[in-house]
């Protein structure tokens, strides 16, 4: 069909070309008008009056406790900036600034180099200027071309609590970071970005949206006031983050645990909301704001107790006897235990050529399942756990949330290790491990390690009889999914009965967790976990109920000795704090 001849009347060519010529001529006239006819006007506009766009930083959302009390606040600081292309004599400027404000000139030089981003973009010279310093700079404003100051909201902690591991911190967006960030998110050099903890997880809603306004600047870079040509856009402040934390409880626990290496977690099992989260030793949350000296830094980094480590989510511990409920539940559920069956505890148990000891020297004597749980008899469990295979036991641990992340709204957490036969084969070879290992593991010792936050979820699953919502810190977290553990109702009730006995029975190991408040029912389990770092870790997991309110507690004191003597009393303090009066309960449970 290419043969269709091309017969176009010349008139059509002329019309088409005519349209093209008219369009192009209109462009030429327009440019002539701007560049030649009106050149002087625009030349002046460009040289005399420059419009400078000044971003208005949006204040970050505050972080609040469950009753609206402020945990993390903002306060305005002033920063000093220099526009390289507008400075006439950089060195002289720096000398004047240094002389009038007392800021070291070498600091100005270093910052200038560090924050330089372009000839006409402000580079930051100094932070946290006082009003006195500002007024001195204002006095010299005539000489200081290209030097400006602006407000910059910074994080501020009213200092009642540390909670640094949960809150996290913000950091400044620098050159390297800017490359990694998505352009779409519109971060600018020098902006603050949530970098750890809640600040990171809820960055998107906390940061808000920047505003902008335009000022006219004369040839010397002096601001001549807001430009009438452009509309000012106000920043949209970040949304406040309301957490489920109870600031008074957090404060009490932080003080109580001072000087220890310990974790205490308190939550509401019904919702998964965290009430208090303490990891000790900790550090002041303003550590990363920049007021920290090199020495302080060195102290923290070289501290053997690792204050920067978030023990709640990244500390890996043997759970000790607190794990016995898993073995007991699995045995009951699989019908492998007879409730009247007794085992004689002589304090020592021999398997092959190995000796396993009970924590009580001389032994407990005759034990049934109830007594074995309440008095935490090891020998009983050594006998009975042999009715399970390692994989059955490991599977049960998984169903209680161990070996997996809990999904709490913190930026990261460790998974821990739950050994199964594949794991043990890899570690010791096909024939390198035996029942003896299972004996050890079922007591929460050996190759298995868990995080305290997993233990929190574990006790919540027990408290809720199998269905516990995901743990979370932000109030109204929409991601509530339940972890469901299908055991029979009867067995859950039986387990609760045992755990209450741990607290109430004469020989119970958890007696000290009971503050003795009328109407308060407590169920729990202690643990004393052997480890290679000296004294055993003291543990307590449990929950308390009163007037339809439910609270669960995990206490872990590193090298604290006996769980019954060291950990249980701290749980007692928590229950006392929350349940002692109507007012305290109202503060803790009203939503």
């Amino acid at each position, binding site marked *: 069909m290419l043969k269709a001849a091309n017969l176009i009347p010349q008139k059509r060519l002329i019309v088409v070309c005519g349209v093209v010529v008219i369009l192009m001529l209109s462009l*030429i006239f327009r440019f002539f008008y701007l560049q030649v006819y009106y*050149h002087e006007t625009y030349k002046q*506009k460009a*040289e005399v009056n420059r419009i400078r*766009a000044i971003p208005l930083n949006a204040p970050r959302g505050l972080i609040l406790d469950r009753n609206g009390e402020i945990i993390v606040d903002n306060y305005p600081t002033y920063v000093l900036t220099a526009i390289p292309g507008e400075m006439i004599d950089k060195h002289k400027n720096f000398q004047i600034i240094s002389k009038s404000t007392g800021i070291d000139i070498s600091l100005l030089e270093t910052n200038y180099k560090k924050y330089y981003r*372009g*000839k*006409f973009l402000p580079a930051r010279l100094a932070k946290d200027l006082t009003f006195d310093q500002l007024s001195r700079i204002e006095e010299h404003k005539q000489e200081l071309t290209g030097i400006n100051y602006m407000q910059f909201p910074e994080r501020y902690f009213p200092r009642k609590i540390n909670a640094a591991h949960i809150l996290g911190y913000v950091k400044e967006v620098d050159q390297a970071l800017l490359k990694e960030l998505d*352009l*779409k998110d519109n971060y600018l050099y020098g902006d603050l970005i949530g970098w750890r903890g809640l600040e990171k997880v809820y960055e998107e809603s906390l940061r808000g949206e920047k505003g902008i306004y335009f000022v006219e600047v004369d040839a010397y870079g002096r601001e001549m006031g807001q430009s009438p040509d452009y509309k000012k856009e106000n920043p949209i402040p970040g949304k406040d983050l309301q957490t489920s934390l109870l600031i008074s409880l957090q404060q009490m626990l932080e003080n109580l645990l001072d000087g220890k290496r310990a974790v205490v977690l308190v939550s509401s099992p019904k919702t998964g909301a965290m009430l208090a989260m303490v990891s000790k030793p900790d550090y002041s949350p303003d550590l990363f704001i920049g007021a920290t000296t090199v020495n302080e830094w060195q102290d923290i980094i070289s501290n053997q107790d690792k204050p920067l480590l978030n023990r709640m989510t990244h500390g890996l511990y043997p759970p000790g006897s607190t794990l016995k409920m898993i073995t007991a539940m699995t045995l009951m559920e699989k019908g492998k235990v007879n409730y009247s069956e007794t085992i004689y505890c002589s304090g020592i148990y021999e398997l092959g050529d190995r000796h396993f000891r009970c924590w009580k020297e001389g032994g407990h004597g005759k034990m049934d399942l109830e007594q074995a749980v309440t008095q935490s008899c090891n020998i009983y469990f050594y006998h009975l756990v042999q009715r399970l295979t390692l994989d059955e036991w490991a599977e049960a641990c998984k169903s209680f949330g161990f070996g997996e992340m809990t999904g709490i709204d913190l930026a990261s957490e460790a998974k821990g290790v739950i050994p199964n036969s594949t794991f043990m084969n890899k570690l010791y070879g096909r024939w390198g491990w035996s029942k003896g290992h299972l004996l050890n593991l079922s007591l929460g010792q050996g190759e298995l390690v868990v995080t305290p936050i997993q233990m929190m979820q574990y006790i919540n699953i027990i408290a809720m009889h199998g269905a516990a919502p995901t743990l979370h810190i932000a109030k109204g977290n929409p991601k509530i999914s339940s972890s469901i553990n299908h055991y029979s109702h009867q067995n859950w009730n039986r387990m609760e009965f045992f755990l209450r006995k741990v607290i109430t029975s004469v020989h119970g190991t958890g007696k000290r967790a009971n503050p003795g408040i009328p109407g308060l029912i407590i169920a729990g389990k202690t643990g004393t976990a052997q480890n290679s770092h000296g004294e055993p870790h003291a543990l307590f997991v449990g929950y308390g109920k009163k007037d339809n309110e439910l609270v669960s507690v995990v206490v872990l004191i590193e090298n604290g000795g006996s769980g019954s003597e060291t950990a249980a009393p701290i749980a007692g303090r928590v229950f006392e704090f929350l349940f002692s009066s109507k007012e305290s309960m109202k503060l803790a449970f009203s939503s």
Partner: protein
Amino acid sequence: MIQLFLQKFKESTLSILAIALFLTGVGLITLKSISTGHEGNYFQQSFYKQLFFLLPALIVFLIAFFIPRHTIHRYIYGLYGFMILLILIPFLGEEIASTYRWIRIGLPFGFQPSEFAKWIVVIALARYLSDHNLEMNYFSVSIAPIIIVLIPASIVLNQPDLGTAIIILVPVLPMLYWIGARPFHLFLMVAPLVSILTAFHWLSFSIWASIMVYVIFKAKPNLVFSISTFFGNLFLGLLSPVLWGLLKEYQKKRILTLFNPEIDPLGAAYQIIQSKTAVGAGGLFGKGWGQGTQTHLKFLPVQESDFIISVVGEEFGFIAILILITLFSLFILRTMRLAYNVDDRFSSLVLVGLGTIFTAHVFVNFAMTVGMIPVKGLPLPFVSYGGSFLLSSYIMVALIMNLSIDPKDY
């Protein structure tokens, strides 16, 4: 074969290629200027990236130049179908700057298939209009060509990319006119759109209504048709503000961003004023290479692509602008002249379509830089930074040169 190729090359209109290469050089010089004075390496990259893209541009140029015209003619419908699929693909991918224009295949740069839709649509349309012996006196014959352009244009409009959608739509008018469509029919095609757009400004709408009366009067169709056309358009215009009011806030915002597609926190008005100031301050001879203060203030977020002319205007002055516009005009007029002279209808229509694409690009880009029309994200051929567009432009140059030769054996 090489000899054949050289022979074909010699016979082609080399001035077209010469202008294209010269303009590319101007673009590179300008990109280099933008990169100087900035410490970051991002802007330097746009210069080197553009330089790097010249190589694939040369390769696709040679391919498009050497393909015989009957091959192009035979496979264009298939290519058209493939292109429709291709411009649908970005919708499956990730959103970049809240648009769906890009295909990413693991390379450090994205690929924008809608760039290639422009000339594929023109060729497909040219085949349709030359294959069938159409009776251009009837309005109904224009329906199929309109569908051919409307399908890709509406997909691209949803990306959303108004600029490219317009470029895909516009060539159909001169191409229909070229083969004898009545101007009044073309007027009827454009009228509803103008009615809707002018409806928001009563003076423009009144002027438009008067123009309609005049044109309909001059064309002298039958009375019923005249009246229904006039009042139909009037009604459409009056209805559109009402419909606008019924839209949800986010729907309105979506439509408005079509007219201002750049993600621009500073506001479009600000950008235009800065651009005009830059151009105006350039004067007759400009401030010199690398000396534009407005340019280097980085007031224009897309100065290396859509707003490159404001950099040229500030640093090289009106003389440079005049030279650029003259060169573009020569390029386009030369293409139209070739379309007039070429022997077969298919090639002629392709040339007219491609000439129109270049005209629209050049006019819209220059005009928006100085605030004659609202901001549309359209780059300037050869000069603006952008890989896909550079490739596409050189394919179009190759097609113009290829199809304008007297068809012998090649």
